[in-house]
């Protein structure tokens, strides 16, 4: 980690922040929540507290802006620079700016929180089925009022759960109209407008009047982006128009033609050549939470780290199950020390939601509910409970077709189905009550399905819920000078290789004895693997030799065909 020159830091621990404006890409409560969670990342490991202010000057002023946004460091359109923040201090120092030419999401595509409907403000579920058709975006199908909606479960036809998607026909944000919906047409400087416009603004944000005459009433708000809207370009917020003509060719889908950067774009009118109206097509977007957590690191005094996995590494990469890297923790604790005692109450997002008369906007007969107030969910991150945070497992082995990871009384399971989702942790004592907390190695006898667990110089055999042991490993014919068995690999025909130190023994499970000719040196039997592996296991036909965070993978022809990280390649962190 690095700190800024002079170790710039706040001289108080009760840090305040204020969200100056919002992005049209996400519902404001989702943005509030992303920022609150990003602060919590740092709060969890320091004595710092973060309090949200709704007016006045806060230590950390947070804003969205595009290109030239009022400081000497302009943003650069979509992609490239995502955000920046200043180290602690007065004025602009400590502030965080986010490029609103980016598509801000939770990192996995449109994050669409619904309003009204009957799903209590749940997120849209994409894809969803409606009348036999699958939808991957919000739709106005099935409605006569042109309001986009989505199902909040996979099957609307079955569950009938739905809500309305962001639309200027439902609400606005910011401005001075308390979130009222747009009124179309409206008059602005004597001209009539039928849709949101950027006219009259230099920041490219789309707005509308919330009465029929802006010139008279001066009431306005900003238009939320629909999930189908283009990003950036010169038509932000407009939908793609398919087909469209570009350089005389007709296109029915987004294209990267005409661009050197390979980004997908579309025209928002039927003819780009005539109208020159365009924007980038929606993609997965950038996780506002992850980028904010990084920027708040700067705002608290951390400079860029050169450790790729650290939050303070300068490049963006999406991680689903985020946990703060050791390097980030050491950095922030160098500045502020570590936290003690229970955490304070997390900051709450703004909970006011404008009331809309259901009769006025909704023509469906579905039950109507107003959106409930939202509370920020800030589950504490317990680093010991996250398998991705375990530097070195006690043991890894296949049991009943699932890869099991053991560490200090807990275990996680990686299913061979469900795209290899890792579940857990589960207490070892609940499933195998006779076992100690530390398991050095384990294996499942493929013939009898008995489970063998080793810890130190003892072993246990589980058959279902019944257990034999502990017994001394000497009973298996192993020498009495062995401290522990570090790995086990099934070889078929009731044979299992047991690894300890530089040696390997072959156990005849049926006879409960070591075969003649053993021990042998591991590096003689398996050339090219570390001599001091702390764990050896069989997984999908390969033998994995683990040392530190890494593994060496050997195929059936005894070739090392891969060396990688347990965390990324095996656990899919």
């Amino acid at each position, binding site marked *: 980690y690095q700190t800024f020159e002079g170790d710039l830091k706040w001289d108080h621990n009760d840090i305040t922040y204020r969200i100056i404006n919002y992005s049209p890409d996400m519902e404001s409560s989702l943005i509030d929540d992303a920022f609150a969670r990003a602060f919590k990342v740092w709060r969890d490991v320091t004595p710092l507290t973060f309090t949200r202010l709704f007016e006045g000057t806060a230590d950390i002023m947070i804003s969205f802006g595009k290109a030239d946004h009022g400081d000497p460091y302009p943003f650069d*359109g979509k992609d490239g620079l*995502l955000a920046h923040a200043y180290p602690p201090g007065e004025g602009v120092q400590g502030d965080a700016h986010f490029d609103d030419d980016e598509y801000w999401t939770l990192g996995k595509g449109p994050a669409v929180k619904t309003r009204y409907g009957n799903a209590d403000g749940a997120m849209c579920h994409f894809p969803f089925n409606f009348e036999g058709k699958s939808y991957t975006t919000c739709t106005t199908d099935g409605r006569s009022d042109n309001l986009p909606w989505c199902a909040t479960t996979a099957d609307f036809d079955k569950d009938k759960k739905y809500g309305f998607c962001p639309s200027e026909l439902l609400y606005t944000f910011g401005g001075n109209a308390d979130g009222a919906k747009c009124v179309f047409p409206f008059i602005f400087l004597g001209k009539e407008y039928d849709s949101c416009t950027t006219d009259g603004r230099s920041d490219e944000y789309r707005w509308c009047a919330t009465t029929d005459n802006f010139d008279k009433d001066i009431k306005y708000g900003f238009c939320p982006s629909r999930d189908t809207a283009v990003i950036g370009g010169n038509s932000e917020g407009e939908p793609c128009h398919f087909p469209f003509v570009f350089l005389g060719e007709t296109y029915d889908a987004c294209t990267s*033609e005409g661009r*050197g950067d390979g980004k997908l*774009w579309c025209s928002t009118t039927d003819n780009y050549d005539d109208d020159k109206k365009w924007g980038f097509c929606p993609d997965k977007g950038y996780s506002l939470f992850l980028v904010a957590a990084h920027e708040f690191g700067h705002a608290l005094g951390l*400079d*860029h780290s*050169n450790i790729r996995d650290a939050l303070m590494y300068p*490049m963006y990469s999406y991680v689903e199950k985020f946990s703060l890297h050791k390097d980030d923790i050491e950095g922030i604790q160098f500045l502020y020390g570590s936290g003690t005692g229970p955490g304070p109450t997390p900051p709450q997002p703004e909970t006011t939601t404008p009331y809309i008369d259901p009769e006025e906007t909704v023509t469906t007969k579905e039950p109507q509910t107003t959106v409930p107030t939202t509370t920020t969910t800030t589950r504490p991150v317990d680093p010991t409970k996250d398998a991705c945070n375990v530097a070195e497992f006690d043991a890894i082995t296949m049991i009943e077709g699932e890869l099991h990871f053991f560490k200090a009384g807990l275990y996680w399971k990686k299913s061979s189905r469900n795209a290899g989702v890792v579940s857990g942790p589960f207490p070892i004592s609940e499933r195998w009550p006779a076992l100690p907390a530390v398991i050095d190695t384990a294996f499942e006898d493929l013939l009898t399905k008995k489970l063998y667990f080793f810890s130190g110089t003892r072993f246990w055999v589980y058959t279902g819920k019944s257990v034999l042991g502990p017994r001394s490993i000497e009973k298996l014919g192993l020498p009495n000078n062995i401290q522990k068995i570090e790995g086990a690999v099934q070889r078929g025909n009731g044979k299992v290789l047991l690894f300890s130190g530089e040696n390997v023994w072959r156990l005849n499970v049926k006879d409960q004895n070591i075969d003649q000719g053993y021990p042998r040196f591991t590096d003689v039997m398996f050339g090219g693997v570390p001599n001091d592996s702390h764990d050896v296991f069989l997984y999908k036909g390969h033998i994995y030799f683990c040392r530190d965070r890494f593994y060496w993978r050997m195929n059936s022809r005894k070739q090392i065909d891969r060396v990688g990280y347990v965390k990324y390649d095996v656990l899919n962190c």
Partner: protein
Amino acid sequence: WSHPLKSTFVTFPSDLVRNISDSQLAENYLKKFGYLQTEHRSGFQSMVSTNKALKRMQRQMGLEETGVLDKATLDVMKQPRCGVPDVAN
């Protein structure tokens, strides 16, 4: 088999990202993130050499330190990132 498409690059209105050469992109990147900064020593200004700046950038990003603008380095330069410079000014 169809003829390969002949791509024509277009300058899109209000697009902040222009079609620039790789070397231009690299120079902009190195300058923007502090690798190619001007050093002030007793009123004398000098630029760190591009080769040296590239090596510094490659080290920061965990790339092989070749000092040459290779594909891996260019790929990293095109990735989304934070706007705060890597080298303090």
